């Protein structure tokens, strides 16, 4: 699945590991409305959020689970989609624009899809193979199409420059267009993708709208992010960032051409930028019954909502796809001393942090791996970290002191920095009131172990661009990640290798990194799923042993909706509502 939004991060915070027992089940799903009990057509469905906007609307740039699920349900269609049902069945693929879920050949290095006839754009024109190819080409325009998933750019068989960038510069500049045309070709209604490696689950990568068709004549470059051309059941009537988005029915869409989507409501209105307390008030008072909240509640309001028996059918509390953690910047001069990393981990009072963010019931439980149990095969309980007998959920300052004593001899420079009141360890964290409080708890806990911790609060919108800049990144960064699909290949290489898109550990100067990278590459290309899973398990253990990340939290998510919203279920692969079946009672 997708990267957590900063919004998620703002609510989720740091905590450390807990009991193993909880890890077994991938889903501890709360109540969920039953789908399609008596679905009704018509009415207006409201969505409310504190966010100012969707992170992106342009299909090539959308990369958060919520936004993908939302737009995939309403606005645009991919070659393949996840099945819109509750439970684990939702993780299976169904053909959408294509007639099948893709045919691999050449050791999964070539994939072909055939388009289903009858699907149309807003203006009634047919969706063609060229539209798909054009859509796929857009992410190569890296200066315009930012933020989207990079799987297609990385995997398509197009030569790369020395710095790793593709020789094809996208459809706007057209440099190297012929290279792209070789990798992606149309023959009638059949589109062929040529890849540079074996990619057994390439079709999963196509659940991302980055592989969705875009009508060339309607492409407006950067502005496409505001109003993409629809081939789904709705189209954008208006979208004003910070205000609202209104979706109305797309008259050109035909049910007959689409086996996935069921548009019930006549209008969909998304209200942005609601103050958090106002948003919570709406949900708590049920003042707009036909409302779905796109956010969780503030921690303080969770209990009131979830303890209310009248709201039993308006909520769910589930393990979401995300793991949140603190990444150690192990580059020289930062957290390059294992003992110090460990000491930080052992000193933290995990219980207090979890309580602060809503308790284990709403926030999550301490985890022991970067890979979440929901990934099934790829997860295996690790040893050490939270399973260390010396670890305590309320913090183990004595153990931490021991580790620091060891660090004093092993790495005196790091020890000195960590204990010097004028220097200290600096933790990058996005600026929210919860994080500010967490900083107090962490600082206090670490003080008991003699460690000086300082916090660098970064405004939410600038957080990732700051911490992902090696020049600006400090010693520890808070982050979160969810698998892009049910394979740790979308987790471990992404987070811990140099080529990954989200490496906060900067660990490639680590002595053992080369070996790690080799193993990771091997696992990535492995087509035997069982063997591959074993590789990920080992790597997960290694990451935890190295304390590249500490205190992963297997997070939970809460979802609320108003009393007249029906058809709600948890769409597991997207980690959010199955938007497509929502209706107004």
């Amino acid at each position, binding site marked *: 699945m997708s990267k957590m939004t900063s919004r998620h991060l703002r609510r989720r915070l740091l905590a450390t590991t807990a009991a193993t027992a909880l890890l077994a089940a991938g889903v501890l799903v709360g109540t969920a409305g039953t789908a399609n009990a008596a679905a009704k057509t018509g009415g207006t469905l409201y969505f409310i959020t504190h966010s100012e906007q969707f992170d992106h609307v342009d299909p090539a740039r959308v990369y958060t689970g919520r936004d993908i699920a939302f737009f995939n349900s309403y606005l645009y269609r991919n070659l393949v989609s996840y099945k819109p049902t509750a439970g684990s069945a939702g993780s299976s693929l169904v053909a959408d624009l294509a007639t099948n879920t893709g045919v691999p050949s050449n050791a999964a290095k070539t994939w072909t899809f055939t388009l289903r006839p009858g699907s149309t754009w807003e203006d009634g024109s047919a969706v063609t193979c060229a539209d798909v190819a054009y859509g796929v080409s857009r992410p190569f325009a890296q200066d315009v199409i930012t933020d989207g998933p990079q799987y297609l750019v990385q995997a398509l068989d197009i030569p790369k420059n020395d710095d790793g960038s593709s020789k094809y510069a996208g459809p706007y500049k057209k440099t190297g267009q012929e290279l792209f045309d070789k990798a992606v070709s149309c023959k009638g209604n059949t589109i062929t993708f040529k890849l540079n490696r074996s990619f057994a689950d390439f079709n999963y990568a196509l659940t991302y709208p980055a592989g969705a068709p875009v009508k060339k004549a309607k492409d407006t470059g950067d502005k496409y992010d505001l109003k993409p051309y629809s081939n789904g059941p709705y189209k954008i009537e208006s979208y004003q960032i910070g205000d609202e988005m209104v979706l109305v029915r797309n008259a050109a869409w035909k049910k007959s051409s689409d086996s996935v989507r069921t548009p019930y409501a006549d209008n969909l209105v998304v209200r942005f*930028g609601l103050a958090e307390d106002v948003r919570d008030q709406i949900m708590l008072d049920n003042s707009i019954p036909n409302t779905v909240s796109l956010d969780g509640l503030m921690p303080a309001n969770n209990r009131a909502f979830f303890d209310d028996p009248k709201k039993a059918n308006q909520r769910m509390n589930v393990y979401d796809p995300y793991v949140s953690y603190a990444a150690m910047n192990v580059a020289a001069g930062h957290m390059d001393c294992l003992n110090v990393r460990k000491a930080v981990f052992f000193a933290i009072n995990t219980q207090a942090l979890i309580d602060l963010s809503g308790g284990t019931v709403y926030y999550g439980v301490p985890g022991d791996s970067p890979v979440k149990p929901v990934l099934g095969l790829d997860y295996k309980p690790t040893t050490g970290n939270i399973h260390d007998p010396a670890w305590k959920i309320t913090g183990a300052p004595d153990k931490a002191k021991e580790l620091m004593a060891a660090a004093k001899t092993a790495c005196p420079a790091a020890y000195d920095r960590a204990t010097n009141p004028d220097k200290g360890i600096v933790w990058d964290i996005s600026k929210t009131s919860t994080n500010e409080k967490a900083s107090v708890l962490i600082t206090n806990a670490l003080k008991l172990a003699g460690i000086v911790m300082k916090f660098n609060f970064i405004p939410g919108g*600038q957080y990732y661009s700051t911490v992902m800049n090696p020049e600006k990144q400090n010693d520890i960064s808070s982050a979160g990640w969810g698998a892009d699909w049910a394979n740790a290949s979308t987790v471990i290489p992404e987070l811990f290798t140099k080529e990954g898109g989200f490496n906060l550990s900067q660990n490639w100067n680590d002595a053992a990194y080369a070996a790690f990278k080799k193993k990771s590459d091997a696992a990535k290309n492995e087509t035997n799923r069982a063997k591959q899973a074993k590789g990920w398990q080992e790597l997960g253990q290694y990451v935890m042993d190295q304390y590249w990340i500490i205190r992963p939290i297997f997070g939970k998510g809460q979802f609320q909706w108003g009393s007249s919203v029906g058809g709600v279920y948890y769409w597991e692969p997207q980690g959010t509502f199955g938007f497509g079946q929502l209706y107004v009672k």
Partner: protein
Amino acid sequence: MLKYLVRRISATLVVLTLISMSVFLIFDVLPMDPARLTCGKACSPAVVEANRHRLGLDVPVQVQYGRWVKGLFVGRTYGEGQAEFTCPAPAFGYSFNRHECVTDLLKRAFPVTLSLAIGAFFLWLFVGVSLGIVAARFKNRWPDRASNVFVLVGTSLPTFISGILILLFVALKFGFVNPIDLGKWVSPFENPLGWINTFIFPWITLALAYAATYTRFTRSNVIETSSEDYIRTARAKGLSEKVILRKHTLRAALAPIVTLAGLDFAGLLGGAIITEGIFNLPGLGRLSIRAVLNDYDLPIIVATTMLAATFLVVMNLLVDILYAYIDPRVRVA
């Protein structure tokens, strides 16, 4: 008269030019790198450079400024090839975070702020001035004392506290406002009642502090004017107290309020940041503060800063001209 206007207007233009230059310079020398900020996840140095070029930050600041000024008059073109598009004049730039021409954003935000400012302005003028007059007329009696309490509370209660209290404990608690419509822009021409409903609490919040200040100001001005010799003259003529107050005292006492009010009003047009934030109003204040706090959206920051400064400078000019009409002593040598 015409000469004077030309002179003042050209002076104003010079000031505006200077302000825009310094705004550019200030934001240029800061250690913020908007290119870096917009770069997102796949952030290689090449992409950062590409973004820098896309944002137009890869040229010296004077060239950026030149482009900006040119854009004001002839519009600006962004992107290449298929992705090319134009922001028509007057173009304040393009926000890559919001995918819109800044001018369009301003056009949308401005009516909101204008509504907020106008409503609050009239509310506080009305309340402040009338309370001030009442207080002055009944100096040291109970209406004066009561208004003094109002003044003290009003001036001591920071807007962010009064706003929150009004929003949480009045507007929402008693259901005066549908929370989902909170801050939703309603045009006064299409739905006057809805417009009032949207803005009434923000007006009250914003007007509270100003009304207190104006009460105090009016009161002291009226009292001061009442002891002027010409008021005694008016009394000696045999005019009734009512006429004296209305025609003689207020005319002189309220004249300085024009200056004060004009500048305060202009200040609001630059964005009532706190009030817009609390009441979720999509106005200039919120636009600018989001631009700063969320993504450091330079074109928006520069544009709103310029706009706010322009209002102040232009209003200064208008106030001076208006004052000359009010006070004949200023009008003619």
